[in-house]
Structures are given as C-alpha cells and as structure tokens.
C-alpha cells in the first residue's frame, strides 16, 4: 500500500488527541519522590502524592433536598518505568459527574478522552450505575498528572461514607468536610484506631460553616485479596450521618435515629398495592394437602426458592422498594426484596404472621445503631410463630427451613412492625452444624488401592452441593458426581455411586461409592510407599503476603477417616508424626494409629468462625507447613 499522506494525518490527529502541548519530563526531584514511594509501596505501579476531597453541602429548594458536592483533586505519579492505567469515577441516577479533567503537571490539559459507559455487573441484570473513565499513560518513571473530578449528589441520603484508601497508595490524603450551620450532620469515625489521622476543626463565622479536616499520610492501596472481609471492617472511613436540617426555622428530620431510616423504608413498603389474587391459587395448592403448619410453611418457602429466579434490577428507587408480590409471582423472577415480599405475601395468604426484614450481610460491618443507607444490602422475610422467630431467605437455594446461610448469621435485622420496628439477631450456628465426614475403607491390591467411601454432608456443606448439582444439564449430572467425587483426578475411578435424594433439602446427604486408585502406591526394593491422602484439604491455604483476615464461605467442620488394611506379611515401618493446633478460630488435628491389621489416618479440621484472622497467621502458617510436610510424607510398609 502506498500511504496516503493527508488521510493518514487526519486519522492520526483524531486518534491521538492526547498529544497536545504540555508534556513535562520528570525532574530529579520527581524521580526521588517516585523512588521513595516505590520503596514504601513496591507492589504498586502508580501512587498519589496527594489526594484531597472537598465536601460541601447545599439545599435544593425545588426538590427540598440537601445536595452534596465532592471535589477530588489528586496528583498522580508513576512508580514504574511506564504505566498504563484507567482513572475512573462511578455515578448513578442520584448523582452526576460535572467535571472530570486530567492535566500535565504544568496545568495544561493532557487531552485524554473521557469515556462514559454503563457499568455492567454479572450479579445485577440491570443497574443505573455508570462510569466515566480515561485511559492514561505515564510514559516515564516519575511522570506526574493532576486530576480533578467534581461529583454532585442530588440527595445527601445517598452520600454514605468517605474512605481514606483508594486504588493506589496515597502519600497524603486529606478529607475536608464543610458543614453549614443549618445542617445537622455527624461524621462518625470508623476504624480510626491504629491510624495516625490528624483532625482539625475550623469555624468560618462569615459563612456560617464549620470545616472538619482529616489528614492521613502514607495510606496503602486497598488490598486486592480474595476472601477478604468487606471494606467497612478494614479501612478507616467516615460514615456520613445526616440527621436533620433547619430551613426557615423549621427543622426537618433526615435519618436521625433508626426509626427514621425505618420510616423511609416502610413508606416505600406501604406504597405497595399488595393485590395477592394472582397467588392465592398457588398458596392453596401448596397448603391444602399439608398436614402441619410446618409443612405449609416449607411448601411455600421452598416453592419460592425453587421457582423464582434471582434477577436484580438496581435502578433508582427500585434499589430500595420491593416489587409487588404478584409481579414477582407472575414473572417468576425478582431480587432479594421481591422474593422476600413474595414469601411474606404467600405466608400471609396462608394465614401466618410474616414480615419484611432488612439486613446487612456479613460483608457489612455496621448494625442499625448508625442509620445510613450503607448499613444494609439485603432483605429477607421473618415469620413469627408460637413465640418463635424464623428467618426465610429465598435467595438461598436449597436452604432448609430454620437453617441460615453464614452470610446472614449473627447479623442484626430490622423487622417491620407497623409504625414501629423490631430489632433482632439471626441466630448463629456452630461449625458442627455444617459437619462433613469422609470415611475411606481401603485395601491394597498390587499397585492399586481399592475400597469403598462414605461421605456425609450437613448444613451448608449440603446446600452448596445440592445447588451446584441442580444448575447442571441433566445429561451432565452423572459425570459431575464422578468428577466431584474424584476431584477430576483420573487416577481415582469411581463406581457404584449411591446417594440419598439429591432433591430433598431437609435431609442430610449421604454418598457411598467404590474407588479403585492408581499411582498412589509405589514399590521399590520390597518396600511399599503409599500416598494415603486423596483430598489434601487446606494444602493451598497458607496466608502469605496477606494483610486481611481470610473469610471462608461458611464455618467448616470436616472429619476424614481413612482405614487401610495392612497386607499380610507386611508391617507399617513409617508413618508421619501426628500434628494438632487450636485457637479461638480453629481446632485442627491429624493423626495416625494402628488398629489390629489396619492403619487409621484421621483428620479433623474445624474452622469455628468461618475465618482465619491476621493475628492467627503466624501460627496458622506453621500448621499449614506441617500439614503439607505430612501430606508429602509417604507411609512405608515393609516385609515382616
């Protein structure tokens, strides 16, 4: 191709608008700053020399709402030889981004294109979140940019918190909140302990405002760690509690106390029509042949679990107001609020006392003592019966009545009660409730191990398996069970699988099957070396370089017993040493013993609070090292 000059030039001009004048090369001082920051934050490619949030409030007379302006000015610096990053900012139906600028260090516009896109999430079918972002490049080490973003909230209700940590480490983070006299707003300090946060308060008499300024130096980037607790547990932040405002001598309450938050929630609930005629026939069908109340409740609860697909629309008020029960019933889909409302209305139709219930899952650190829209994220249904309280969460598939998923256990709930509300806690189950047992009975047959296996699953270990199983194509189900049982290891042939009913969520699961295992036994010079562990649980759970607690999906209680018959003419000449450990969060034990002609290998792993805390890490890691050494150590049989 012969390149056509004018055309080429035009294309280039359009596509590289970033090349306006003003690029400034880093100075030796910049390099020194980058160097210092890189030493402090070796895993980060970019840092913020400074980040300042300026928050101010205003009043929108037309809509009678307190509005918020958040101006964020940052100075970014590249810590690597080069960096290509995205600078972004989210907004939604309740907020907008009115300014988004990126400049070179001399203040001239850098000309990066600002894109605006809907935010897509796998968990939400539709939501009104959008993101503005720019693809930025830092061509040299210590290259700097200035960024400026102005975001405006239409209603202070949706402005819930301010964090010090961000995607990148910050040398100096400043949050400055200017509160006018007419606004009663508390900045509740969360997780400040252990952080050297400097606070100042100044009064601007002429403006009738007070300004709270918080400064924190050397703030690390938010941790990119899997299985971490929610950010509200880990990072210092300010929870914004907008209590009331006074205009023209009239005071208007916002969320001053729990009752105010409840009042807003219940006003949304009260605006529902609750025409249940569409679901009456189904309620009758589900309850007419039920012999007991328990059976009626289960029939309804399980029907909602099984027949309503979880599809979430998080769009404006739909993020807070439940959908009509009849809509959810007719559509056969809904989000947690829709499912909670349908469960409630069906139970009401069947003559029970059911209530809508707000809850913040385990991901959120708060309870209802700090009224704010960030304190809850989920809705369930509460049933009062014969002096007992039962919580029903139909988003949990294959969840038995009276059992609670770990993510809501121990959390405070806000239960509707007409004008008033009730606060209670979801009961906590012990780890033993989720007990999983494995029992191998094995014998040696030349270089093979053969035998039978029994597995029992209780509580959450059970519902998880049932749920996985039921999302599979019918034709893949048999294959899946085999794969699940041998964990994809083709050296373990699984046969004669016998299971309890994999549709019944009220029953614990038993699975019995036969195994024939290749390549686990090696014979050298008349001695037999056996790798007797086919599961090696927790082998990869060493907490290295980790800064946050490790959270398991549920409490664990595993007991695994392997019984190996010693072939005649042989004796056990080596077994690894027994190990055990105990703390508030776990009890773990692995032991070998001989019983008659059998070697018994027993593992007990109990994770009592579904977590390993950072304070446990040292001890925990020592144990995992020992455990891996044990897994790696072979059992030796030698001739008598």
């Amino acid at each position: 191709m012969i390149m056509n000059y004018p055309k080429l030039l035009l294309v280039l001009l359009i596509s590289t608008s970033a090349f306006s004048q003003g690029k400034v090369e880093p100075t030796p001082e910049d390099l020194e700053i980058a160097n210092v920051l890189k030493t402090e934050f070796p895993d980060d490619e970019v840092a913020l020399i400074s980040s300042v949030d300026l928050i101010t409030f205003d009043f929108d007379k037309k809509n009678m709402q307190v509005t918020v302006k958040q101006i964020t000015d940052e100075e970014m610096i590249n810590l690597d030889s080069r960096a290509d990053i995205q600078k972004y900012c989210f907004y939604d139906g309740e907020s907008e981004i009115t300014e988004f600028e990126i400049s070179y260090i001399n203040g001239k516009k850098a000309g990066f294109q600002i894109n605006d896109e809907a935010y897509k999430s796998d968990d939400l079918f539709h939501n009104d979140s959008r993101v503005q972002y720019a693809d930025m490049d830092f061509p040299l080490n210590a290259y700097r940019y200035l960024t400026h973003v102005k975001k405006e909230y239409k209603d202070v209700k949706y402005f819930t918190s301010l964090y010090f940590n961000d995607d990148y480490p910050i040398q100096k983070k400043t949050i400055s909140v200017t509160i006018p006299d007419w606004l009663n707003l508390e900045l509740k300090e969360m997780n400040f302990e252990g952080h050297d946060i400097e606070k100042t308060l100044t009064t601007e008499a002429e403006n009738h405002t007070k300004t709270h300024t918080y400064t924190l130096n050397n703030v690390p980037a938010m941790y990119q760690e899997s299985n971490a607790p929610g950010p509200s547990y880990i990072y210092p932040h300010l929870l914004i509690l907008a209590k009331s405002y006074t205009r023209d001598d009239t005071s208007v309450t916002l969320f001053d106390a729990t009752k105010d938050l409840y009042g807003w929630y219940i006003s949304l609930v009260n605006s529902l029509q609750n025409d249940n005629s569409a679901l009456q026939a189904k309620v009758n069908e589900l309850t007419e042949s039920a012999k007991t109340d328990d059976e009626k409740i289960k029939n309804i609860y399980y029907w909602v679990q099984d027949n309503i697909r979880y599809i979430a629309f998080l769009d404006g008020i739909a993020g807070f107001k439940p959908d009509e029960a009849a809509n959810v019933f007719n559509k056969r889909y809904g989000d947690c609020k829709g499912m909670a409302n349908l469960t409630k209305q069906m139970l009401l139709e069947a003559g029970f006392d059911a209530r809508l219930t707000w809850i913040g899952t385990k991901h959120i650190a708060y309870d209802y003592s700090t009224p704010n829209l960030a304190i809850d994220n989920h809705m369930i249904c509460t049933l009062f019966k014969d002096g007992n309280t039962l919580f029903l969460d139909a988003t949990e598939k294959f969840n038995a009545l009276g059992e609670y998923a770990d993510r809501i256990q121990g959390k405070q709930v806000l239960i509707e009660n007409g004008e008033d509300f009730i606060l209670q806690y979801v009961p906590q189950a012990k780890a033993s409730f989720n007990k999983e047992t494995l029992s191998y009975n094995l014998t040696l047959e030349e270089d093979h191990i053969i035998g039978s296996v029994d597995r029992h699953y209780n509580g959450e270990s059970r519902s998880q398996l049932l749920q996985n199983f039921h999302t599979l194509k019918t034709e893949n189900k048999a294959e899946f069970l085999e794969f699940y049982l041998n964990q994809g290891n083709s050296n373990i042939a699984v046969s004669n699988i016998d299971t309890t009913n994999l549709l019944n969520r009220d029953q614990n699961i038993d699975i019995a099957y036969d195994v024939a295992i290749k390549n686990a036994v090696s014979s050298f010079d008349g001695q037999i070396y056996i790798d007797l562990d086919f599961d090696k649980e927790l082998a990869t759970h060493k907490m290295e370089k980790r800064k946050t607690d490790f959270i398991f999906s549920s409490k664990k209680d595993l007991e695994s017993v392997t019984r190996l018959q010693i072939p005649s003419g042989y004796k056990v000449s080596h077994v690894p040493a027994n190990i055990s450990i105990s703390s508030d969060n776990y009890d773990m034990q692995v032991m070998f013993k001989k019983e008659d002609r059998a070697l018994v290998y027993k593992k007990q792993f109990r994770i009592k609070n579904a977590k390993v805390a950072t304070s446990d890490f040292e001890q925990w890691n020592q144990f995992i090292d020992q455990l891996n050494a044990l897994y790696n150590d072979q059992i030796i049989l030698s001739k008598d």
Partner: protein
Amino acid sequence: MTKKLLALLLLFQSLSVLSQSKEALEAKNFFWGEADKSRTVSDIPANLQNESAVILYKNENYDFHKYGKNVTYTSSIRKRIKLLDQAAVDEFSEFSFQERFYSSKGQFNWFRKGSTTVGIKIIKPDGSETEIDVEAEAIEVDGENKLAIANLEVGDIIDYYYFTKEPFKSTYAFGFEPVEKPLAEEYPILEYKLFFETENDFFINFNSYNGAPKLSEIPTEKRNMRRYELTEINIPKGDFTRWFYPLVELPSYKFQVYFARSGKFEDLALAFLPKNEATIKTSVSQQEVLELYENRFRPDGDLGDVKDYFKGKTFEDDAHKVTAAYYYMRHYYLTRFMEAFYAKDANISPYPFMVYGNNVVFIQSQKQFIRHFTEYLRRQKIAYEIVVAKNRFDGTLDDLLIENNIEILVKINTEKPLYASFFGPHTNINEFSPLLEGTEVYLLSASRYRIDQINKGKLPSSTYADNETKKNITLSLNEAMDGFKLTAVNSYKGHEKSDQQYDRFLYTDYVSEDYKKYETETWVDMVRREKDQEKYQKELDALTEKLRSTQKERFEDSAKAEYFADALEDYTYQINANGRYSLDSYFIFTEGFTTKNTLIKKAGPNHIIEIGKLIGGQIDLTKKERERSENIYLPYPRSYNYQINMKIPDGYSVSGLEKLNTSVDNATGAFISTAKIEDGVLIINTFKRYKNYFEPNSNWEQMIAFLDAANQFTNEKILLKKE
C-alpha cells in the same frame, strides 16, 4: 424554513415509527401467523427425554432485496425449544439485542438505521400461550436492549425469533459474510428449515455437504424473484470434541450471497459468481478459478528498495537469492515499522509513520504480498507458480465454493521448489500454514506475462521430525533434599516454533537484529529533531523495561504451571537463538529457577521424586473421549523430545528405573522413554510423536495407547534411597 424542516423531521420520525411497527407486525405474522405449522408441535420423542432441551423447530431465513443501489437485507432466526431442565431455563432466561444499529455493510449511511425485532412467547405444558411484550419489558442501556424472561419454567416451550432488517447502499459489488456451518447445534433439532428469497442482482453460491439435504427451489409468482429452501428432520445434537473438524464430518451447508448490479460489477466481484441470478452455484471448476485470478495476480509493486539492497550482491543460486529477498522484504515491509507501531500504540509519538515519507510500501494483505513478491520473481526471471489452496478444516479442493476460503502462496520453481507466504515478523521461507500441508491445490502460471494456465498439484507435508519441541532439563537437588535447581534449554522448530516466538519475544528482541543485519535506520534514527529523538528513545526504553517486567511475571507463571511448582525463585530467562531465518533452525531459550516442595515427597529417610511430571501435563482422556466415534483431525505431525538429567545426590542410590523404560510405537504415534545412570547422573529420554494429520476412527485405540503411555509416565516416580 425552520418550520418546514421541523415538519419534515416530524414526518420522517412518524414514518419511521410507523415502519418500525410495520416491521414488527411483518415479523410476527411471518413466524407466528396462520401459516405457522410448527405451532402444534410440542411433544418430543422418548429417546430425547433426558436432554437438557430439544429444539422442536428451527427456522433461518435470508431475504435480499434492492432498489438500485439500495439493498435491504433481512435475516431472521426462529427457534421453538422445549426446556427440560433448570440449566436450559437459565440459558433462555435472558435475551439481549440491538434494536437500532448502523449497518457496517456498503457505504456508511447515517440516514437509515438497521433494526432488530424480537418476538418471544412461552407455551405452558397445558398449551396456554403468553406472548412477551418485548417493547415494554426490555431495558435499553447504551443501545443494547436486555430482557429478562418472565414465568419461564422447566417443561415450558420458549418460541422466539430475531428479525433483523439491515438497509444499506452499495454502488459496487458487495459480498455478504459467508455462512458455513453444520446443521447440528448444542441441542437436538426435530425439524429444521433454511429459507432464501432473492431477486435479480443477487448471486448465490450454496451447497450442502456430508449428507445434508440439498437446497431446492420453490416456484414464485414473479419472474425476477426466487425462493429456495432446505429442510431436514431429526438432527442429533453436535458434539464438538477435540481434534475434530465439524465441516468435514457433519452434515453442513455453506453459502455466500453477492450483490452486483451489472456485468461490470460482476466482473469486478472477488467471488466465484454463478452464471446468472437464476442459477445457484454449487461448485467451482478449475477454469473458473483461472478466470477469477488471471488478472488479479498480475505482478505489481515498487521494488526500488529491494533493488538497491541487492546491488552488487551475488548468490550461489536462485534459491539463495529468493530466500534473501524474502527475508529482506520481511524486514523492509514489516519489521522495520514495528518500533513505530509500538510508539503509536503507547502514545509515545503522535505521528510516528511520518518519518517514512510519502511513498512507503507497507504490505498488508496476502494478495498484495503475492503481487509484490511475484513482481520481484518476474524481474529476476525466476519461474514461479501461484498456489491456490484451501484449509483442511473446510473440505477438499473439489468442494471449493467461496472465495474467502482461498489461501494463496507462491511456489518458486527453483531446483528444489521454495514456498513463500505472506509474512508475519517471524515467518520463514518455505513456511505456510499446516492446515494447507498435504492438500490438493491449484497452481496458476503464466506462459508469458498474463496468468493463463492452471493445473492441479499437491502441497508438501511435514513430518513429526520437522515439527519438534525439544527440552533438555537439568535438575540438581539442594542439600536439604526439599528443593531443586532446574535449568531447561527449550528448542522449537518447524510448526512448533512460531507460537513460542510470538509468546517469548519482545519486539526489541528481533527488531534491532534486523536493523543491524540490513543496515537500515531505526525509527528513532529517522526522527528529524534531535530533541524528539532523545525523548522518544527514553520513552521506548521505559516501555521496553515495563514490558520486560510483565513478561517475566508471565514466564514465571508459565514455569510454575509447567513444573507443578507453587512458588519459584531466582527465575532466569535468556534467548539463545531466535530461529527467524529458516524453518528448520531452532528457536532456543533457556530458563532456570529454584523451587522448594515441588515434586519431592519424603519417605522416611528416603525421597520419592515425581520425575515423570517433568515432561509437563499430558492429555488425560475422559471416559467419554475414550468412546469417540468421530475421525481424528490433528493439527500436524509433531514430536516432543525431552532429556532429563538429574545428578544423583551423594550418599543416595536410585530405585525404580524399570518403570521409566517404556515403549508404545504404532502407526499413529509413539511414546518411548528410556532411563539410565551414567557418571552419577540419571538420564531420562522421552519421545512423544504424533505421526499424521489425520487418523480414521478405527485408529483411535492406537492413539489412546500412546496417549495413555505418556500420561502414565507423568505418574512415574523414582526413589532416592539413603545409602
């Protein structure tokens, strides 16, 4: 004036609203109107009850109409599906589509947008039907419409269609995207219908393969309108397994439609058009291939730079000369620009290509390459033929139907023929896609200037020895016997080479070498202003440094996966030979690292080494794969040859060598391993070979034999026994 314009706009708007609903009605009537026979079908045969879902009726339609240059292309698909399990319900519970869009066909036309109409209804087991109000229920975000399907349950039938009308304008001949697919899909189909409606100026190539029914013509009321259909019943679901070419094995069809308004445009169309619109073209003859290409491959190109480079140079023979020319062109027309591409991509320079001046040659298509390269051959008076070939995965040369499926090479008729194909940065002379190897091809040649001869020929094949991955691994255990140091020299040649080169090279690894070899100026050197030069060089260096560091992380991860290591330390990587100047030269790199608790198991005072795992993960066939009923289509013959050297630690002896000596060698492939101890070093050699491109299903057992032997080897261990 403003008022008039406004009125016009309003009129236009209301018209478009009207036409939209007209389209929706048209679509609905077309699929679900009185004539819809499939509405009564709701039962499935007993043998399909265990499926996840069964398609009761599938209907695809293509409709081509025009008015002058204005084309209206309508395509639609309807499926009526019985959902038999939760997985199927989940699969069909959400839909997305673009209701309005700009056509990418023909000339850009902002005035008329394309539209997609979606219709969905749910039929309950009791026969009651609910039509979904798509317009009301779909949510539109940034032009994308999403719809969650209400009240969908196991046992329901979902009946849906997508109906897309795409108007566009094309002055010149325009070829629609070819469609080539098997009748089978993920779910079994009880009844299938493919339907076409066209009129004059639309040319259709269509044929059915591997037992699929033929397209048949349906009489129409108008002389210039034509209708065709293909119907089939009881199509089993397709199982798209490893080493399988669906278009070669399964009942399939292929078609392409071409729009050409007059004989002049017909002649210009790059397609094997039927004689006229009334004829469906089902095959392409040798003569037609010649006719299409006789003018298109006229040698052409500005060879000034090549001439300069060759001035004063002499060569042993034509083969050497052509080889030198190929590599020179690869540099001069491609790798010379790499730096500029990176500078552009990384925003280092706004106009990096300006330095090359106005008339720079940059080859960017197979056909351009052929014309340029043959111009060189013509001037040098070196005999050549143009090879017209077809990939093995879409059938034989006799089944040629669609021009897009053609691949072009040059065969240079030197004493031992050479082949030249359009180059990437590492392509060698004599290298062409393994998908063409051993296939029947047409050879075009010119008795004088113009191409006027066509013959059939066959491209050469490669052997497993030609395509090789070779590793020489040296392993030494640490004193604590809980870890080892590993050094691996990795060598690749033939078709095993290029993927590795793309994976392992940074552009700087070969660009600087080429600049030196051909004494050409770097991009930075060509930049005029000294200040810019300095700046660009600095920024390119920073980019390279960053790429190196991310590359190192990637290589470490890849080594971890290959050698089953959770962690490794002191990783080193070095290129020994880049293999860029002949197909049979090795690309060689060495990597090294230390690791702990990897492949070593304690056994009392002794240690078991999982030495077999050092040949990397092998194919571990599942039960289902073992029961394969299809023929086997392999990428190309190849071999994996490993040598593992492990120094036996002092004070230890080795047991278990017998299991490391194994041999399965048959007509399809081999896995052979040998182990011996020499001078205190355990030396293991393994050879894994795939011998052919194709194996009939009757050979599957033989393949299983060597695949299993290789997989079993990865389970073998040795004992290091404390003496």
